[in-house]
Structure formats: C-alpha cells, structure tokens
C-alpha cells in the first residue's frame, strides 16, 4: 500500500472518528450523570438535520438561523422525552428506564417515517461544506475541520459547565447520589432536564455535521451512528468525557483502517467493530479511560 493511500485513509479515519466523538460526548454525559444509557440518542441525532432541512426548505430561514433553531428544537425534544418517558420512572429499577429508552428510540424512528416518509432527502450544503482541502494528493472534507473545532468548543464549554457552575455542581452531586442531593435542596428534576437539553444539543450538533458530511437524510440514519457512538463511549470508558472523544476517534480510525488493510473483508466492518466492543468489555470493562468504581451497597 502506497504512503499516499495510507495518509488518505488516516484522514478518512480522522474525519469519521471526529463525528463519532462528537455524538459519543452527548451519550457519555447523560450516562455519567444519570447512569442511564439513552438509546434514543441516535434518534435525537437524526431529528436535528431534519429540522435543519425543513427550516431551510419550508421556512426559508438562512443557514445559521436554521442551525440554531434546529439545535434548540432538538434540545427541547430531548427534554420532552425525558419528561415523558424517563421522569415517571425515576424510582423504578434501572432496567425499566433502559427499556423505556429503547421504546423512545423506536417511537421517534417510526414517527420520523410517518412524518418525513421513508424516501431519503438530499441536503443542500452551503458552499463551505462542499469545499475540499487538498494537501498534495490527500483530500480532506471541510467537515473534518468543522467537527474538530466544534468538538473542542463544546468540550471546553461542557467542562466549564460541569466543573465551574452551580448547575454543574448539582449534576455532579446527582451523579453521586440522587436521594442525598434532593435532601441538600438540589432541584433534581430541573438539573436532569438541563442535562438532557445539553446532551440533546450535542447530538444535534453531531447530527447536523453528519448531514453535511454525508448529505442524505432518512429516518433510520441515526441508528448505526448512535450504536457506534455508544461503542465509542464504552471503549473510552462510559461516563468519561475525554474518554468518549478518544473512543470516537479510535473507532472511526479502526473502521477505516480495517477496510483499508483487509479490503476482501470490507463488508464485515460493522461485525469487526462490535467484536471490538465485546473484547473491550471482556478485557477492560471500564474502558480505556474509565475509572473502576465500586458499586455502593
């Protein structure tokens, strides 16, 4: 394999991995605070580019306004799903909430099929996102730079919120012990709502960048990226924000390199990725950057 091809594939891997990383952050954040694997994350992710699409197409909003509106709407959807499907189960066993999350996922998927139809829609990309950067023979999509910049901004913002604000303090206390936090006059419901809003907004940003990189919308588009981001979060150590980023990049990279070095097996790349998940769970259940936390009795 020529050097040029290796470099091109590294760029491809980085480009895909940075998108996984962005989605994985939202996944891991909700888990870190609530100990809930929000399986509907992929569907929330799918809704954002649709909102953007309809904002531009039907309401003729300019791009930037439409992006902001789409993120806001997605955040609201995330909060609503929490209010309707998770809050009533706050004191139920964790498995019930998990099942409820799967239910929300299917519900949103099928709702999207009914509303948006199963026919894929094309995304009209602004000129910047169609641009390619060429370094010698290596070609890199502009979405890679956008996703790296956006990820950095959001990561900084997230760390600021979680570690420097009062809401962040509330989030961290809830992640340790909900009951005690409530006794300490922490508004649990409000804090969890905010957590979902932020997590969904992150999914929205990921979804929009994904739509700009792979310009096609269909109701099931969130399923695989959602699962992959979940794997990325687990590989990095679920609940750990830098871990999710690292996991996303590793996952994107290994997917591309798997195809690049084993072209004959290129159809089995998802199987390979899920095998990695199983291996990580067997060898290092807490992920690469995960802490080994003992369950409290």
């Amino acid at each position, binding site marked *: 394999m020529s050097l040029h091809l290796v470099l091109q594939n590294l760029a*491809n891997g980085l480009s895909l991995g940075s998108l996984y990383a962005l989605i994985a952050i939202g996944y891991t954040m909700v888990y870190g605070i609530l100990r809930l694997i929000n399986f509907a994350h992929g569907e929330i992710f799918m809704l954002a580019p649709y909102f953007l699409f309809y904002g531009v197409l039907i309401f003729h909003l300019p791009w930037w306004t439409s992006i902001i509106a789409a993120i806001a709407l997605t955040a609201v959807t995330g909060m609503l799903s929490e209010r309707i499907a998770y809050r009533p189960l706050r004191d139920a066993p964790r498995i019930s909430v998990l099942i409820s999350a799967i239910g929300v996922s299917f519900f949103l998927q099928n709702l999207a099929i009914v509303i948006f139809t199963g026919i894929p829609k094309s995304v009209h990309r602004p000129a910047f996102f169609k641009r390619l950067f060429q370094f010698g023979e290596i070609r890199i999509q502009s979405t890679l730079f956008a996703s790296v910049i956006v990820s950095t901004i959001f990561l900084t913002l997230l760390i600021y919120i979680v570690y420097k604000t009062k809401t962040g303090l509330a989030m961290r206390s809830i992640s340790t012990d909900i009951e005690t936090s409530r006794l300490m006059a922490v508004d649990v419901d409000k804090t969890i709502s905010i957590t979902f809003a932020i997590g969904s907004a992150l999914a929205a940003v990921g979804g929009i960048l994904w739509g700009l990189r792979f310009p096609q919308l269909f109701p099931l588009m969130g399923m695989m990226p959602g699962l992959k981001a979940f794997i990325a979060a687990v590989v990095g150590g679920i609940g750990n924000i830098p871990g999710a980023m690292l996991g996303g990049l590793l996952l994107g990279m290994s997917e591309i390199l798997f195809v690049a070095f084993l072209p004959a097996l290129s159809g089995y790349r998802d199987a390979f990725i899920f095998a990695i998940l199983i291996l990580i769970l067997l060898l290092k259940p807490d992920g690469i950057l995960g802490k080994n936390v003992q369950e409290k009795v």
Partner: protein
Amino acid sequence: MRKSLFVLTLAILIIAISSVSLAADVVKFGISEPMTGAMAVGGVLCMQGYELAQEQNPTVLGKTVELVLVDNKSDKVESASAVSRLIEKEGVVAVFVGYGSSCAIPGGEVANKAGIPMLSASATNPLVTQGKEYVFRACFIDPFQGEVMARYTFENLGIKKAALLVDIAQDYSVGLANFYKNTFEKLGGEIVSDMKYNTGDQDFSAQLSQIIASGAEALFFPGYFGDVALIAIQGRELGYTGKYLGGDTLHNPVLIELAGEAAEGLIASTFFAEDAPVIPESEKFVKLFKEKYNETPNAVSILTYDSYNLMLDAIERAGSFDPVAIKDALAATKDFPGAGGSITINENHDAVKPAILVKVVNGNFAYETTVNP
C-alpha cells in the same frame, strides 16, 4: 319494540347476505411490497403501477379484482410471512412481490410451497424463479443485465480496468456484480478492485480511496440508489474521475435528486425509458400515468402495471381461478403486449425482453441505447 327488533334483524340479515354475495364477486390479488424500510421508495412505485392497472382493468372472469397489500418492511423474513398471510388468511388467487430480489426469493418459496402462482415485476436475481413451478417474473434476469453492462463498458466505452462496489446484504447486488465480473473478465478486461459494503452504510471513504488508487476507469455499483447516491458524491469528493455504472435500481429520479452533480454521466441498465422508441402500449401507459399521478413514469411502475395485466391475461386464458391452470397459462405466455415491451416467458419462467440503457444528462435520465437478448 318487537317491530324495531324485527327491522334490526332484517337489516343485519340483508347486510350479511349482500356481503356474502359481494364476497363471491370479488377475487383477491395479494401484494407484498416494501412500504417502509430501506426500499420504501420501490414499494410506493410498485403500488402506482398495480393501482393504475387495476383501475383500467378491474374485472376478470366476471369478478372484481381486489388488491390486498401487506407491507414486507424491506425484510426477507417479513416478506415470507407477508406472503403466507396473504395466502392463508386472505385467500388470494395470485401473489405479487414486485420489488427487491431479497424479498421476492423468500416470498416465492412460500408461494411455491402453497401452490399459488406468484409473479414478480422487477426482481432480477435468477434465484427468484429457479426451480419454482409457481413463480414467474415480468423482467429480464441479472446474468443478462450484468452481461449487457460489462459488454457496454468494455466494447462501447473502451474501458479495460473496472472496479466493483457491492452491497453484500442484497442478493441482487452480489449476483449482478458477479455476472458483470464474469463477462468483463471473459472479454479481457480486469477487475482491479472488488470492495464491499452493507445496506445503509454512510461512509464509503475507505473503499473509494482504495478504488481510486487501483486506477479503475469505471465503477460498477449495483445497489440501493440511496447508498449509491452517497457513494457517487463521496467518490467525486475523493477525486474519482472515471465512469459510474449500475443496474436497474439506479434508474430512479430520486437518485439524481440525492446525488446532484455527482450523478452526471452515470449509466444504468433498465426496463423502460420514457424517451426510448415507443410502442402503442407504452404510449398509452405514459399518458394514463401522467394523468393519474402527475409525474414522469418509472421503470418499476410500468413493470408492476404489466405484471397485473399479465396475470389477468393468464387467468382469462386459463378460464378459471384454479392455481394449476393459471400457472400453466403463465408459463405459456408468448408475445404478451406489455407497456414495457412484449413479454415472452421462457422455460426458466423469466421474461425475455430487451435491456435499455439510460444515462444521466443535465440532471435527467436520457435514453442511451437498446440491447436485445
């Protein structure tokens, strides 16, 4: 009180009798199509053809035809259970699984075992009809289609190096790519890269980088048009400058809408092109279709339209609704005047028809050439 009870009983009796006599005047055609899932667009196109045909010719042997649709959700397993539900619960006299070889193969197994005639409009994989007494199709098969495309690439385009990008989750894609490869290599061409993916994949950068590096001048990608649109876009982004070629699934206006400029120059083999030299039947179809749906007709609708009419014709020739008689009549079909070209059923239960090649020019499919069997 007593009187009203009497009236009520009478009313129920009348309704019951009339519904019985109504049921006796109705004959059911079972349809299993992907109305949701990855191939949902195909299912919608199929229904347009069936419904138009049923509107035009609503009766057979004095009975009204009723179309019973069951969604197979683009899924192999669902397709098998959809067909058995149509046969066992609805009591249909004929089954149609028009779209997708991966749905028509399991559907055909069930219909064949139950001994109910099945007709597939556009499923092109050889396995659909192979060894099945009761299963027929109204289109040509992939070995023919693959051969036509390989010959076109090698002889008309003068290309010696081609690459394949195959959807391993679709029987259609795997089969067609194989037939293309066989003919292309027999002609003296070389398949320089043979890459795979799965339906619904969105990132193809690794496969495409490989294909570009292999120096391929043509890329043959028979797959679902949604995936192909993404491949076409990403290929051009990564610097692929060669030709794009594919099979009948790509002859779909949505592909051009999704891929935009990247679809320019793409060539696909198909069953029908609006601007191809016309026969009276297709002219009539185009007119009716535009009146009813107000859009340009497509290859899939014309085939489902034809398959409905072919089934009607076979039942009339059989003179009864006996499945064995219908089956024999279908097998004996010769020069049936279909809107998508005349249909003769051969000994393998496949239709013998010419292939039509279309090319994307200025955002529209334009007729390129006709290849006779």
